[in-house]
Structures are given as C-alpha cells and as structure tokens.
C-alpha cells in the first residue's frame, strides 16, 4: 500500500517535471498555432449573447465571432473550447486553450496568473431590469422597495446599503427572473451584459434597463503568461477591433444596444 503510494507520488512528480520542461520547450505560441493550423479559444457556452449554444449545439455569439476573427488574421482554423468562470484561467495555464475570450473582468489579481493584453475589448457593470410602467430613473428610486438579486453577488450590499433597496436574493437567475415576472420585486439587479440579452426575449418586451450602469469594469481576453509575442499580436488586434468598429458591429449583430464603453473606445482609436 505504502509502496504504491510512493510510486504514485514519484509518478506525479515526474509528470509535473515533464509538463514543466514541455512548457519551457514551447518556443512561441504564435509559431505553434500556425504549425498546428488550429487556434484553440476558450469561450463561454452559457452566457447569451456573448457565448452560447445554437440549436445544433455549436457555440456561437459575440465572443466566438471575435475568436473567429483572430483565427482569420492568423490564417488558421478556430476550435472553440467551452469554459466556465471557475476553470477558464486553469485551462489557459494548462495549455488546453491558446487564447481565452470568456467575459472575464480584468482584475489585478488575475493579471498575476494570466497575461491580459491592453486595451480591454469590452466592459460591463451593474444595472437593473424592471417593468417600463414603473418608470425608474435613478438608483434612489429603489429605496424601500423589494429588489430581486442573486445570492452572493457583490452589488447586493451596495444596492441595499447605499440606495436603500430591500434585496430579495435567490439562488439562481431562473428563480430571480421568475420572481421578477411574478411581481415579487420591482426590479432585478444583475450584470448589465446579461440583462441586455434578456431584453431581446419576447416575454421581456415590457421591461427595460432604465438606470445608469454603475461599477463598470472592463473585460480582458488573455493568453498564457510569458507569451509576449502573442500578447503583442492580440493588443494590435483589439486596437484594430475598436478602430474599425468591429465590436459595435458585433453588438448590433447579436442584438445588444451599443454600450458606452464600445462607443468610447471606437472614438478613441478611430
């Protein structure tokens, strides 16, 4: 028993060492991608319209379109790897994907783990979804009223403490949307990028996203730490996206109202 355990440990150590040398031996991600002819991109598959599944099960959306554009520029084929928030950085570190475009908020602690090229390609913040007839104008209008939320979201406290709303938080988005539609709360406070997509659904035709977005935070795409050449290439690509208005174009294609961030970036690099 003990013997087997020791062997297991040695085996694991050897594997780790091999993986380490492999990553050292890796000359340059750009060369490898071109040699393989495939760009593996980690995207979301559950975040409509930024990355989701169509009826045939293929991953489509705004971010897959961006990934396709990167592949076209490199002259290779694209392969989508579905990721979720809890594993996206690990997939990149382990080399399962070459590039990650997965609705990730750009934060300093994340920059320690992966390489996020500047400028940021997108951004999102906090807003609410509410029936048009309530005529909400400012965050202060929520004072003393029940507002649906998601348990564990960081903006619940802010909405409750600063704006005086009574947060009614549910486990998942499905329950929160159901409670909102049933009239259990006046609004649903959530990530504006997700709410935008809801507004396109026919059953939310009577709803709006009326408040100014707060806590706007930029999104970053990422490559493996140390891949400076690839990062440089991605910097140029993102700059080009903003310059040509590609992001604005894709927003329109996927039914998202042009976001202030995308407009500002387009104006900046135009």
């Amino acid at each position, binding site marked *: 028993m003990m013997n087997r355990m020791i062997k297991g440990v040695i085996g694991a150590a050897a594997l780790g060492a091999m993986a380490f040398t492999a990553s050292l031996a890796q000359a340059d991600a750009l060369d490898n991608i071109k040699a393989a002819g495939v760009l593996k991109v980690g995207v979301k598959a559950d975040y409509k319209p930024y990355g989701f599944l169509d009826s045939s099960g293929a991953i489509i959306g705004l971010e897959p379109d961006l990934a396709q554009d990167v592949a076209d520029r490199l002259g290779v084929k694209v392969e989508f790897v579905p990721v979720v928030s809890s594993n996206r950085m690990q997939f990149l570190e382990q080399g399962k994907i070459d590039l990650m475009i997965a609705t990730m908020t750009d934060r300093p602690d994340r920059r320690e783990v992966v390489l996020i090229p500047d400028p940021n390609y997108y951004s999102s913040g906090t807003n609410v979804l509410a029936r048009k*007839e309530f005529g909400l104008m400012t965050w202060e209008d929520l004072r003393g009223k029940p507002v649906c939320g998601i*348990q*564990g979201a*960081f903006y*619940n*406290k802010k909405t409750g403490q600063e704006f005086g709303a009574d947060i009614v938080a549910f486990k998942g988005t499905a329950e929160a949307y159901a409670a909102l539609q049933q009239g259990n709360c*006046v609004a649903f406070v959530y990530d504006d990028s997700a709410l935008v997509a809801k507004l396109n659904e026919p059953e939310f035709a009577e709803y709006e996203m009326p408040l100014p977005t707060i806590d706007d935070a930029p999104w970053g795409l990422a490559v493996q730490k140390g891949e400076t050449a690839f990062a440089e290439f991605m910097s140029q690509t993102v700059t080009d996206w903003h310059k040509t208005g590609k992001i604005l174009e894709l927003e329109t294609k996927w039914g998202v109202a042009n976001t202030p961030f995308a407009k500002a970036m387009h104006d900046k690099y135009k």
Partner: protein
Amino acid sequence: MELVYEWFRELYQTTGINLPFIYDSYDRGRLIDGFLTTVELSLICLFFSVVIGIIGAWLQGSSFTWTRRIVNGYIQLFRNTPPLVQLYFFYFAIGSMLPRVETEWGGQAPMLGSFAWAVISLSFFAGAFNVEIFRSGIEAVPKSTVEAAESLGFSRFQIYRDVTLPLAIRVVLPSLNNNLVNLVKTTTLAYAIAVPEMLYESAQIWSDNVNVPEMMIFLLIAYFVLVGILVWGMNRWERALKIPGFGS
C-alpha cells in the same frame, strides 16, 4: 458598546478573525433582522403545526369515511415530499396562480409573499407529522378510559378535549419534541425562496466579506442555542405535566 465594536475590528486586523456582524452596523442590522425573522417564523410555524396536528388527529377519528380519507391524503402528500420542493411549489407554482394585489410602488404582486408561503408550507409539512404523532398518543389512551367517559354522557368532542387529548399529550411529548426541533431547523430552507432569515442573511454577509468559516461557526452555535432553548422549554413542560403513575 463602541469599545466592543472597536475590539472586534482590532481582532480582525490582528488575527484575521472577521466578525463584521458585530462591528459593522449594516451587517449587524441584517443579522439581527435575520435572527428575529428566524424566531418569528419558528414560533408561528410551531403554533400552526401543533394546531394542525391536534385537529388532524381528531378528524382522523371521525366517523365519516371521506374526512378520514382527506386527512390521510394530506398526510401522505406532505410527509412524502421534500420540504424544499414544497416551498418551491407553493411559492412559484401556486403563488403565480393567486389573484394579484396592487403594491405600494404601483406594480402587481402575488397576494402572498415569501414569508407567508414559508409559514404555510412549513406548518403543513410539520403538521402532517404532528397528526401522526398525536394519533399515536390517542391510540395509547386505554379504551376503558374512553368508555368510562362515554358512559358518563360525554360527547365525542368533549371526550377528545377533556379526556383523550390531555392524556395523549403526555404520551406524545417526546416525539412531538423531536418533530418541533426538526421544524425549527427546517426554517433554514426558507432561504431558497428569499425569506430573509438567519441563514440567508449570513450568506449575504459571508459573500460580501469572504469570512465563510467564521459565519459557519457562528451559525452552528446560533442554531444550537436556539434549538437548545426550545428543548429546554419542552422538557420543563414535560416535567410539569407529569402525572404520577401514568406513562413512564
């Protein structure tokens, strides 16, 4: 009081033990509200579940077949389904079918909110068990005692109220105690339909402050104390009701 808050803030800075529900006025308010909601929800559900138990057990002894069938159907339905599923069912399925009322902000809300549904659901859930618990007590009352009361001209209701039930309560107290303890613990499920009880508020606090271990320890102690008070009260009641020579 300020000194105490300061001490706990100091504790966080020096040791990393973060108890914001003591020093942060917003978190403190939330947790106190949560605690009071838990106590309120527990007391209301305790009361109604016992009432349902007593009435249900009486109806079970009814001479009408259909009354007995309905009571048994209720017991089967509520005892054989998970309480969390019941809460979701009441809140999202039944709640959406109810007539709507005008809310103060000009919207249309279902007649009953999450707290009311939690009371209804949990009372009926625990009540189903209580009916069976009271039945066990009623069946433990010697038939000769009931016959003696009948021969004295007592009606069926009088016998239940004055003879069977007082004796039955003494028999059922230990198992009733068990079920009521369970009920208090089950109130945490109301978290799922956003009743702001203690677990719900704690979850908000630990996701804002990332102090999960501290909150878990606090919750365990808080529920231990809360249920401990109930058990202590029930045990006292059990002793007070004791009749020498009856039961144990």
